[in-house]
């Protein structure tokens, strides 16, 4: 009995203590965190996503409110010092009043300095439904009754460009993400099939990939988008457009996944799984997919900006997203008229959102690409 007891304690002693080891995702996160640029990119993307989801909260005026009296108001300046030179702790805005030049009939807006409207935060304002469900009337900022606050000015129909741009992010971001996901699914299925089965399947799929990659993206996107019937409802247009973008952007991913699978196919653990009689499906979904997943996520991130750019261009031309949906490109549509643009230069504001989105996703993707392979030496 005593010896038994002793043996057990010694066994306990000789068993190697469990080492703390970091999981794959901890390693990825550690490497990602070190890259300042990709952190900035991630923050840009997150900000835009937040602005889009809570557009009603961030917009002081109801986002779909049409107010023809306030069409093309220039961005209202936030003041700290009033026209008499007094400093205010709380920032305020002046309303714009409309004047017509008696000789040229040119519209111009001048600040009405008779009354300052202080900007208040977390104010109760117009009713909206958060996520389309939860009724709320809280807004991040606003001014008291009678004042207006258009930080980026208004468009032709008197809609607040700031609120509108936040809302447009919903479609621009979700469509590009949706399109990128479809293209990633398509690309990874074809890539894995091509790399895993090899032989004539690989050959045929590779020729097909080459063919699609050789196609001029933009003209074909334009042609296909123009074929989407004008009478289709918003949801159909959304899905069709996403599919059109996905149709041509899966080729890079298919190639990368294929080469990754090709190198994995000969590794010991795959051979072991095969020897143990695992089915093709099990090998593909249990072993190959998880190992290519990080690359797939990287490409997903890097596909999004391309779709954002293409979508904005098509919507700008009027063959992409159409009203009542709104995207950043569609918001730019008024700038097609050079005269309107010349008098109301602030309607270029959505460019800022598009650039932030594209830049953010590119930075994020580049950072993820470096981090996705944490075992490689730097």
């Amino acid at each position, binding site marked *: 009995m005593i010896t038994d007891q002793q043996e057990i304690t010694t066994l306990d002693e000789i068993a190697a203590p469990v080492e703390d080891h970091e999981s794959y995702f901890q390693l990825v996160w550690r490497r990602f965190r070190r890259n300042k640029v990709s952190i900035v990119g991630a923050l840009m993307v997150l900000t835009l996503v937040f602005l889009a989801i809570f557009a009603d909260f961030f917009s002081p005026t109801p986002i779909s409110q049409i107010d023809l009296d306030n069409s093309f108001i220039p961005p209202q300046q936030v003041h700290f010092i009033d026209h008499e030179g007094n400093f205010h702790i709380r920032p305020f805005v002046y309303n714009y009043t409309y004047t017509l030049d008696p000789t040229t009939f040119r519209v111009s807006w001048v600040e009405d300095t008779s009354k300052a409207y202080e900007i208040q935060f977390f104010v109760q304002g117009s009713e909206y439904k958060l996520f389309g469900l939860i009724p709320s009337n809280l807004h991040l900022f606003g001014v008291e009754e009678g004042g207006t606050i258009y930080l980026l000015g208004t468009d032709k129909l008197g809609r607040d460009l700031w609120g509108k741009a936040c809302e447009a992010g919903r479609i621009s971001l979700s469509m590009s993400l949706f399109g990128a996901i479809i293209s990633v699914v398509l690309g990874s299925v074809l890539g894995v099939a091509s790399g895993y089965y090899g032989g004539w399947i690989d050959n045929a799929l590779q020729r097909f990939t*080459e*063919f699609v990659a*050789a*196609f*001029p*993206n*933009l*003209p*074909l996107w*334009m*042609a*296909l988008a*123009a*074929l989407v019937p004008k009478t289709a409802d918003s949801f159909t247009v959304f899905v069709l457009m996403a599919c059109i973008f996905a149709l041509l952007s899966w080729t890079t991913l298919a190639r990368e996944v294929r080469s990754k699978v090709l190198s994995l196919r000969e590794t010991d653990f795959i051979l072991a799984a095969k020897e143990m009689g695992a089915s093709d499906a099990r090998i593909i979904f249990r072993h190959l997919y998880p190992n290519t997943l990080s690359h797939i996520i990287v490409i997903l991130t890097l596909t999004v*900006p391309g779709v954002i*750019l293409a979508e*904005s*261009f098509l919507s*700008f*031309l*009027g*063959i992409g997203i159409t009203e009542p949906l709104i995207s950043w*490109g569609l918001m*730019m549509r008024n*700038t097609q008229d*050079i005269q309107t*643009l*010349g008098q109301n*230069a602030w309607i*270029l504001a959505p*460019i800022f959102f*598009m*650039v932030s989105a*594209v*830049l953010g996703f*590119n*930075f994020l993707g580049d950072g993820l690409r470096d981090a996705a392979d944490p075992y490689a030496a730097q």
Partner: protein
Amino acid sequence: MLSYILRRVIIAFFMLIGIGVVSFIVIKLPPGDFASRYQAYLLGRGSSQEDAMRAAQIVREQYGLDQPLPVQFYEWVKGMVTEGKFGYSLAYRTDVGELIADRLPKTLIIAILSHIISTVVGVSLGIFVATRKYGFWDNFFAILSSVLTSIPRFSLAIIILFIMVFQWHQPSMVSFFSPQYVVAPWSLDRVIDMLRHIWPVLFIAGLGGVARNMRVMRGNLLDVLGAQYVQTARSKGLTENRVVVRHAVPNALHTLVAYQGTVLPYMMQGELEVAIILGLPTLGPLLYESLVNQDIYISGSLLLIYGALILLGNLLADIYLSILDPRIRYS
């Protein structure tokens, strides 16, 4: 090597047929055929019902629209190859081939000019930043290129247009030449005048190419600069300039050539985007107009032309590379 080139040509030929099929599908996809659209067009212009019907029937026979689809495809291709007939444009009331013949050279001038500029500028910048790895200029150009390429090309064009019209008050924007030079014979002044009109396109279309060429050249050159023979060259006592220019750069250029074929589509798409905004008489605005007007023969033919040009670019890059770099295997 000959057999390699021959194989590339054959593959390119089959791809061209594939692109033709896709373009043809785009022509056929809208509901109703060309003849019924022609009929509607004639009715819209005030023809009587019977006249329009008869005219549509004539068109239907002339274009073989009552034939099965494969035959139609064959006829369409045959028309293009043997007679240069691409189909009839309702908006321009002429054969699409003439429109293309008029505008294709202008598109090519822009695409090739911006290609050359982007290669020269991009490669020079790549060499410049690679020899200053992680230095101020390296970071500066890295950030600048990612910001500039993140601006949608069409909005960059709008901004430039805005500046040209409202700040510089440049008249006659939407053409290749100022009025006094339109019919003038070629001269230095005329070329300068043309550049004054098309520089936004060259700039914007070239921008992405510059950024990509710079990145690739920088990466290649850094790889090569780490190679042993470069070290040998340095230890021989050569100046750093000579090491880079004479030994490193030529070897770093190879990979750049390989991917020049993919730069051309990029240029053409940039040209497409900017030319639509500026209204230059190139293929881009023609494609856009035809899509809006549902002038299907133009859209289909232009798709084909774009595809063929890109294919040609890839093919030339492949062949050129096989001549330039003996290390390429022809299997």
